[in-house]
């Protein structure tokens, strides 16, 4: 995955709460067996409304999504992350994320940033006033900056390190293959197998 250190870009204000993954990428898009082409399905139903914020050309090229609370709730579909990334987003900022979405995002290098709901609204208001407003998301400093304002956000050290290095989890885990094998030898004898 692409490493993430610091990113500056413009943002889209999505003034909705409970943006579930069925809205981010509707189920019909989940039939694909490839990992590409999901940008077309991003918010597919909402995009049919000409008034939907992503249809406003002023926000073309934005890379940061500013959403209301409870973003990415619902289904575990990682397609939601792929759709956001393939559309061009590198960061989603919200007051609260669905746990699985947040996990999926960090596996793929899409940065989920938790900021206080009030701050998110401030940021939304700023980009609504001027869509060209650049926002910086600095993972190194764990900080979001707009003009002279800065807000810090929390992310655990390990996930931050992995994102900054762009590391593949599987490769990291396989370094501990010995420990996995040792654990396997001690598993309880009654545990089932599928064969």
């Amino acid at each position, binding site marked *: 995955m692409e490493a993430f250190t610091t990113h500056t870009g413009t943002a889209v204000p999505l003034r909705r709460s409970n943006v579930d993954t069925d*809205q981010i990428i*509707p189920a019909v898009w989940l*039939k*694909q067996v490839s990992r590409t082409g999901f940008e077309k399905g991003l918010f597919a*139903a909402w995009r049919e409304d000409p008034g939907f914020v992503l249809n406003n050309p002023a926000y073309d090229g934005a890379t940061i999504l500013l959403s209301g609370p409870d973003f990415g709730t619902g289904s*575990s579909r*990682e397609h939601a992350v792929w759709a956001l990334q393939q559309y061009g987003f590198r960061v989603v900022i919200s007051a609260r994320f669905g746990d*699985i979405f947040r996990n999926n995002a960090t596996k793929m290098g899409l940065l989920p940033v938790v900021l206080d709901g009030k701050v998110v609204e401030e940021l939304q208001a700023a980009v609504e006033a001027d869509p060209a407003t650049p926002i910086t998301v600095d993972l190194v400093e764990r900080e979001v900056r707009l003009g002279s304002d800065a807000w810090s956000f929390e992310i655990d050290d390990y996930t931050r390190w992995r994102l900054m290095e762009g590391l593949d989890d599987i490769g990291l885990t396989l370094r501990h293959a010995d420990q*996995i094998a040792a654990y396997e030898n001690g598993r309880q004898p009654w545990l089932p197998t599928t064969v």
Partner: protein
Amino acid sequence: MGRTLAEKVWEQHVVRRAEGEPDLLYIDLHLIHEVTSPQAFDGLRMAGRSVRRPDLTIATEDHNVPTVLGPIEDPVSKTQVETLRKNAAEFGIRLHPMGDAGQGVVHIIGPQFGLTQPGMTIVCGDSHTSTHGAFGALAFGIGTSEVEHVLATQTLPAYRPKTMAIEVKGELPVGVTAKDLILAIIAKIGTGGGQGHIVEYRGEAVRKLSMEGRMTICNMSIEAGARAGMIAPDETTFAYLKGRPHAPKGDKWDQAVEYWKTLRTDDDAVFDKVVEIDAATLTPYVTWGTNPGQGLPLGEVVPDPAAMTDPTERAAAERALEYMGLTPGTPLREIEVDTVFVGSCTNGRIEDLRAAAEILRGRKVKTRTLIVPGSMQVKLEAEKEGLDKVFQEAGAEWRQAGCSMCLGMNPDTLKPGERSASTSNRNFEGRQGKGGRTHLVSPAVAAATAVTGRLTAPADL
């Protein structure tokens, strides 16, 4: 200090623990289906990796399959199912394809085979994996990258979520089901109420539930934002498991039960969060909005957003009512539906079908009514009991097993503006078909609603 059930199961599965890193957890069972796995298998192939433990992995076809007999007509769905077949064959994974007696919704077949057991760690690329927590297993949904990780390593790096107790005091009144209880819980704590937590459901009303009812509760933990839901195993659990194909046998059974009995929260253990709910005050619940937290007792009216003080909640309610085509103040009982759906991993088990059949026996449905068993085995069992006849005589459609209208990936969908009473778990916008409007209900309410064409409790008939 004592430990909670979730902590005990977690600790038992730690392969590796290092300062500043997530725990590496061993996974006892990995369930696979066609939708979230193709890109994971591709990833393995690209990296030249194999599946570490095909013998702890099982696959089924559920999301895309048609619920009428015959082949899959949609070429894209067909490709996805065929891709799963190819992948299962290539990597040596047991698969239950369409038409096979073991096929069904992934969360229904695990328990049915006895593969879901207390104290296990279970994952699947599907958020409703929380269902398996009903057995005292630690079970959670994962994304496709994690599916690939589990396939390659049989482990997952994860931070231990916080723990939360939901204490259900008292007994559920007659006519109030597990589904009503979980809808009431989500309405109380909200769709983010369990976020970052593993929930343990406790208390008298929970202990009295059947395994089917417990699965309904744990299934919808994710709708309250929780990572997983658990219920401590007890005699009800053991009785359900005993004799199932993959349950331990002989001495191993005794050994297992002895261990399973230790899987309960110690009296002096402390949860990070505790919520209490009084079961005795509950009545049948329905949702009126577009997230599962927007629910009320059936006797209430459509709420008025103007009366809501929280601005985010008010905006969400306004939007939901617009989407749902509802006016504040309308009694929920007066809402007319076009379609009734009984099925899904929430309520597609035999007990759910029995509950619906009991109401439909000798009556006629007024709406299009789809009855979709959660698995082939549930279907066969229902047919042995003659439930299929009851449904058909009432005018309902008796279908093949699958996810069906729960998410509308197969042809079973609502048309724009159509309204359903559905026993599934999500009332999101467009979940059951673009523009479709969903009211989540219990199987009993679904069946009563089919009879009158309006949201109805069995007691109203």
